[in-house]
Structures are given as structure tokens and as C-alpha cells.
């Protein structure tokens, strides 16, 4: 035999070759969608420690991982506890510097539900990575060091989270062990944040005093040290939170691909990002406005009789229409906004900032198009006020902007639909992602009602919805769809509308 094997393994006991059984194995029931959450707040407030502790106390850390943690921790604190942050800070550079640089995604569950956590960095320099985590979260755990309270970076993170549509916050007043479990300090910080949250439009705030390191009020109760606190532990609060509701409103299918496996089949593939659809429904293809009916909803498993938000489907229409990647198939009423000029808010993510007048690539859904940005104001984080600002939005700035397109663009307001209201900006030179944005409104003709040409005659009709749908599906109507305004009302609202219009009709 030649040279001996030099596999770099440490010998382990033979028993390690058997999967050992944990004593009280909780069978995970996953009846609900997972709750997606982030930790955020300023540098060193204990975000990674908290999630590490959460994983530890929910038994999500396996024995071999615990052994690695013990080995890597060394003697890092006087409590003889492992450095739980190392369960999250997996990059060499993070371990060397003792900070988080990029988001870590972790998965754990309790008997009640499953969770996806994004542990984000507190460092201002890496705000873009916090934004990455925040964009998909349902809930934010905002940490504050009990010794220092809310900092500008704490406010920045809370603001970004709120801007991105997070409506549920847990304020973790951490390191409470270092201030002698002082109730007054906790209450002062909690009150201060409640007031700040109100300004952000966030009402759902659960404030919890905790020691992430010692695991008090994380999964295990902290009553012994804080008999004065009667609220939930962190895990209890998380179990009660709600997952982001699927987008209601009109049907939206951003078309990712057109699939043509044979002459007779033409399907439009994409993920439903709003509403629902069934065969027979009338749809419009935007931005062209062409109208058709749904013939089939195809998936690998079965031909379906309905699809709802979140479903990845292939849609077949009843007629030959021009549909390409980037188009959006929508329900015929309750349509999104189509136009070339929109208002939006955005977070600038890269050192170069966002330059006024520069042409960027904008990607939203499956659509990528050229856009020019004109900043109008910027958020002052120290006062919470929007200040007029028409120049460069530097890195980490939160701004309001006008978007001007060369070709028609299609959006919902982000408040109405996160999927069709969100976009990223890509720098045409570096091709890097330089901003994340949220559309607030279409500009100029808000509401999109036609003014018509000078002297043009128009007729307002009120019809039963099914009849209207048939008319709208006709070729003639479809060919002139962009000249018509459509609103869906209840019969009572329609009657009121007509009576208000008086005797002219």
C-alpha cells in the first residue's frame, strides 16, 4: 500500500455513527406558513447573540454544532456561556472583527410554528444587507442596548423596516442584566420607541426586557430576575405574530417566460403576485391592454381550477395575443397603474449613491426597463422630517423620488401590493443593485381617469358585472381598451353615483 490516508478528520467515538435520539423530540407540525422575521438595531446591541440563544433554547443546535461552538467560543465572557453570536456570524471576517457583516438566514421551529430568521448587521456601512433582510420580513425584532437606549442607527433601521411594509415590531431592550434589571430604564426606552413608532405608522409594538446572553425572556421566562415584567417572552410574542397576508386585490401575473413546447400550446409562466384566477376569467395584458380569457391553468401535477397569490403557474389564454416576458397579466377590473411617470420612496444602497438625472435599469417583477430618477426629498433621521432634496441621495439615504420611464411601466402602490409595487435599481455601469424602492403613486393623472380630447363625448354606463365582462372581452372593446375607464362598484354605489349626476343623464 502507498502513502497512508491523510484525511483531516478528528477521530470521533464510534457511537457518533448512530443518529442519537433527543429525549423530548417535538414533532414539528407545519400547518401554517413560516413567519419571516429580522433582527435589527445598532452595532453590538446583541442581535446575533439573541438569535443564537433562540436557536440554542429551541434545540435547533445539534450536538456536533454545539461542540464546534464550544471550541470556537474560547473564554469570551465571565458567565461561562458560549458566544452564541458565533452560531450566526459564520464568515471569517465576522469572527475576526466580532461583528456581523452580512445577513445570515436561519430556520427553527417550535411546536406551534416554523420561523425563518434573517440576522442583519447593525453597522451603518452594511445597511444594504439589513435592507436585504427587511424586504421579505413579516416582523422586526428591534434591539436596543439598555445602557444606551435608542440611537440614530436604531431609528434608521426602524424607519427602513416600516418603510418596507413591516407592521409588527418587537422592541427588545437587551442587556438588561447589565443595568440591574432596572424597570424604570426599560419603561423609559419602551415609551420613547412607542412614540417614535407612532410617527412611523407602526402600532403593533411589543416591548420586552431581556438578556439575550443569559436567555432571560427569550425562550425561558425571566421572572426570577424581573418579577415586575408580566408580558410575553420573545418566543411567545413570535408565536402570536401573523404572517404577511397574501395580497388581496386584483389578479396579477408578471410573466417570466413564454413556454411553447409544441405548435398547439402556448403558456405564460409566472408566480401569481396578487388576487386569484380561474378558467373563464377575463384578463388584460399590460402594458398593451389586450384582453383575453383564461383557458387553462396548468401545473405539473394537475390542471387546476383556480390559482391564488403565491402559486407558480402556467396560464393558457383562449386566443393568440402578444405576450412577452415582462408583461403583466391582470384581472380586467381593479387594474394596476400604467404610465411613464411615478412617485416612489427608495433606500440608496451603494457608495456611489443615486444620481439625479442618471439613467438606471429598473427591475420590478420580471420587467426590466430604463428609468431616470429625480429626487425630491430626503428623510432626516434625527427629526423624522422629510426635507426638500434634489441632489445626490448618498449611501443609506432614504429619499422620495420621481421615476420617469421611456416605455410605459406598470405598478401597484406598494401599500396595496408588495410584489407589484417594489423595484430595484441597477447601475448600468457596475451592474450592481444600487437601490430598493417602493412605488407610492402614479404621477400627474392620479386615478388615471381620461380627460378625453377637446369636445369629446363620453357615455357612463352601469351594467351587471357579468355582462360588462363579456363586453370587455370582445375584440372591439379590446382594441380600444386604453380609451375606457372602468370602476367596479356595488349596485348601491352605482345608483348613488347616477343620482348625484342628476338629470343630465
Amino acid at each position, binding site marked *: 500500500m502507498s502513502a*497512508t*490516508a491523510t484525511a483531516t*478528520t*478528528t477521530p470521533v467515538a464510534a457511537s457518533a455513527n448512530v443518529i442519537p435520539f433527543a429525549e423530548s423530540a417535538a414533532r414539528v407540525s407545519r400547518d401554517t406558513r413560516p413567519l419571516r422575521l429580522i433582527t435589527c438595531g445598532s452595532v453590538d446591541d446583541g442581535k446575533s447573540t439573541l438569535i443564537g440563544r433562540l436557536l440554542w433554547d429551541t434545540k435547533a443546535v445539534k450536538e456536533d454544532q454545539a461542540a464546534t461552538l464550544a471550541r470556537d467560543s474560547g473564554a469570551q465572557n465571565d458567565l461561562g456561556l458560549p458566544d452564541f453570536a458565533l452560531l450566526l456570524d459564520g464568515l*471569517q471576517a465576522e469572527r475576526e472583527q466580532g461583528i456581523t457583516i452580512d445577513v445570515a438566514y436561519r430556520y427553527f421551529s417550535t411546536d406551534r410554528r*416554523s420561523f425563518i430568521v434573517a440576522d442583519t448587521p447593525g453597522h451603518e456601512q452594511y445597511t444594504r444587507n439589513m435592507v436585504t433582510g427587511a424586504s421579505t420580513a413579516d416582523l422586526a425584532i428591534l434591539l436596543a442596548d439598555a445602557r444606551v437606549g435608542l440611537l440614530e442607527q436604531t431609528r434608521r433601521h426602524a424607519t427602513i423596516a416600516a418603510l418596507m411594509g413591516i407592521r409588527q415590531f418587537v422592541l427588545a431592550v437587551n442587556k438588561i442584566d447589565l443595568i440591574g434589571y432596572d424597570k424604570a430604564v426599560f419603561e423609559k426606552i419602551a415609551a420613547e420607541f412607542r412614540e417614535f413608532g407612532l410617527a412611523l405608522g407602526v402600532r403593533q409594538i411589543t416591548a420586552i426586557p431581556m438578556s439575550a446572553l443569559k436567555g432571560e425572556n427569550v425562550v425561558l421566562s425571566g421572572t426570577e430576575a424581573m418579577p415586575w415584567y408580566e408580558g410575553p417572552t420573545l418566543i411567545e410574542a413570535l408565536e402570536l405574530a401573523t404572517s404577511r397576508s397574501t395580497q388581496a386585490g386584483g389578479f396579477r401575473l408578471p410573466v417570466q*417566460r413564454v413556454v411553447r413546447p409544441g405548435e398547439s*400550446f402556448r403558456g405564460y409562466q409566472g408566480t401569481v403576485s396578487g388576487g386569484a384566477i380561474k378558467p373563464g376569467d377575463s384578463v388584460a395584458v399590460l402594458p398593451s391592454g389586450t384582453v383575453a380569457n383564461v383557458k387553462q391553468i396548468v401545473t405539473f401535477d394537475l390542471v387546476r381550477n383556480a390559482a391564488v397569490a403565491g402559486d407558480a403557474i402556467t396560464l393558457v389564454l383562449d386566443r393568440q395575443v402578444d405576450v412577452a416576458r415582462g408583461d403583466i397579466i391582470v384581472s380586467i377590473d381593479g387594474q394596476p397603474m400604467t404610465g411613464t411617470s411615478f412617485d416612489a420612496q427608495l433606500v440608496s444602497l451603494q457608495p456611489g449613491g443615486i444620481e439625479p438625472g442618471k439613467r438606471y435599469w429598473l*427591475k420590478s417583477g420580471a420587467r426590466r426597463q430604463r428609468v431616470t430618477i429625480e429626487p425630491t426629498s430626503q428623510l432626516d433621521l434625527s427629526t423624522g422630517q422629510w426635507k426638500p432634496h434634489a441632489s445626490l441621495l448618498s449611501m443609506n439615504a432614504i429619499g422620495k423620488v420621481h421615476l420617469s420611464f421611456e416605455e410605459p411601466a406598470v405598478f401597484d402602490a406598494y401599500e396595496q401590493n408588495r410584489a407589484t409595487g417594489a423595484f430595484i435599481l441597477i447601475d448600468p455601469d457596475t451592474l450592481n443593485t444600487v437601490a430598493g424602492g417602493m412605488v407610492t403613486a402614479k404621477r400627474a393623472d392620479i386615478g388615471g381617469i381620461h380627460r378625453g380630447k377637446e369636445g369629446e363625448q363620453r357615455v357612463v354606463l352601469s351594467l351587471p358585472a357579468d355582462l360588462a365582462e363579456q363586453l370587455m372581452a370582445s375584440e372591439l372593446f379590446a382594441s380600444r381598451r386604453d380609451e375606457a375607464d372602468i370602476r367596479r362598484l356595488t349596485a348601491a354605489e352605482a345608483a348613488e353615483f347616477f343620482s348625484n349626476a342628476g338629470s343630465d343623464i
Partner: protein
Amino acid sequence: MSLSAQETEIRNPPVSRPPLDPHLKALENEAIHIFREVAAEFENPVMLYSIGKDSSVLLHLARKAFFPGRVPFPLLHVDTTWKFKEMIEFRDQIAEKYDLDLVVHTNKRGVEENITPFTHGSAFYTDVMKTEALKQALDAGGYDAAFGGARRDEEASRAKERIYSFRTPDHKWDPRNQRPELWNIYNGMIKKGESVRAFPLSNWTEVDIWRYIQAEDIPLVPLYYAAERPYVERDGMMILAEDPRLELKPGEEIQHGMIRFRTLGCFPLTGAIRSTASNLEEVIAELEIATVSERQGRAIDRDQSGSMEKKKREGYF
């Protein structure tokens, strides 16, 4: 009017199963979305196919994503020549059964220089026969996007990875400077020579993978199920003893017992576990109460913390 073959197929879907639970459904939807996005935005994608359970799920999702069309890219298998025999048989069966374009690549230099896991140690061997081989294959194919089955829950540096993981022309990953990745809007713009590794299974856990395999009835290499097999104990691992290239060291002897594998790689570097779980239900039951992680059986992950990051920076998956 008679139906075309295509329409007939769509009216009689290939399978009909009870609906997935919402958790798995959400993961499936996300993966399909990623597949379609990459296929639409890149000129020349490829899917890394390692024959293991994650690859099997990945392939199943690809077939779903493009149905009723064909999977619109080839599968690439980096063959180190030290895979389990059953893996190679399974690979060829699957490629034929599902009508896939399979590309197999082996690092010729490594073979010529006789670099083996026994003679050169796991780290060097992996570097040559896996990382270097992968880069050769990606360059040869001119692929601008490569799907992989990596999951964030596997390892600490993977937990940091984006779904579109950007790579320089020499395949390097810069974990300190990743592109922001907001919502499910992926930035697929790259310059010539640069590429993206795309990970549709990013948010799946090991339990999710097994439960999905069960729900969707996905075929797997039989090595995942317990059976009476010959093995040798070495360095605290049970190594399958069926390949004639495995030479016994003094004091070693071939034993027989009920064993199975939790992950599959190169046979000399992949340890078996003792188990009686001979079907899916039993494997899942065993997994749900497991107290050690799946990477525990892999020699290459047992090096220093941070070894995976180092390999990934150099271009490993």
C-alpha cells in the same frame, strides 16, 4: 378536431397526488420562481447535478418549473471517479428516464497525476477533483449561470449566501461584498465572463427536503435507505467496502451491518450511520429526533470552522 399529443398530456397530468402542505408549497413556489427567472435571464445556464437527495429535489423542481416544456438546460455532473457505484447507475437511469441532457466532467489532470482521497488527503483531493474540476467544466461549457442544490441551513457560510450568488470570471465569491437582494427581485445582470450560482433550495431545511421527497414520491439512490452492507471503520467513520480500490490497512477488517447514508459524496470521504430506517417514513422519523447535523458524516466539513467559506471563495459550490 383531434387533440395533439401535447394537449392530451396536459389533460392527463403525469401524476395526481394530494395537495402539498402550505409550508412545502411555499418553498416549491419559490424554487420554481427562481428556476424560471434564471432560465429567462441568462443565456447559457446549467444545473449542477450531484445525484444526492438535494439534487434529486432540485431536478424534480426543474421539471415542474418548465412543464409542459422540457428542462431547458443541461445537467452537469462533476465525476471525481470516487463516487458510489450506485450513484453513477442511478444518474444514468434518471438522465434516460427524464430525457435530460447530461454532461459529465472529470478533471483529467487529477486522474493523470493519480490524485486520490487515499493518497492526497481530503482537502487537496477535494480541491483538485471537485473545485478545480467544476471550474474547468463551467469554463468549457461557457455557462453564465449554474444552479446548485445548496441550502442555507447546511453550514454557517452558506447561511450567508444570496439566492443569486455572484461570481467573478475566475469563479470567486466575495462574501464581504455581496449584491443586495431584495424581495424576490433578482439582479441577473452580469458582465462577460462573470457568472451567477443560483440556489433555488436556499430556504429549505433537511427535514423539508425529506418531507418533500415523500410527498412527491421522488426516486433516490438506494444508499439513503438502510440495508445490510459491508463497511470498514476508519478515522471514526464507517466507509462502504465494495469498491476494489479501498485497501485495508493493518488491523482493519470488513464488517457487515445495517447502515445508510445521510449525505452522499465520494465514498472514501462519506461516513455511513447505523440505522434500520429502510424506507422514507422511517428515515423521516429518525431525522426528526436526530441530535447531530447531517454534515457530521462528511470528512471535508470537519476541518476548521471556516473551511467551507474558504472553499466557496475559491469557487466550490
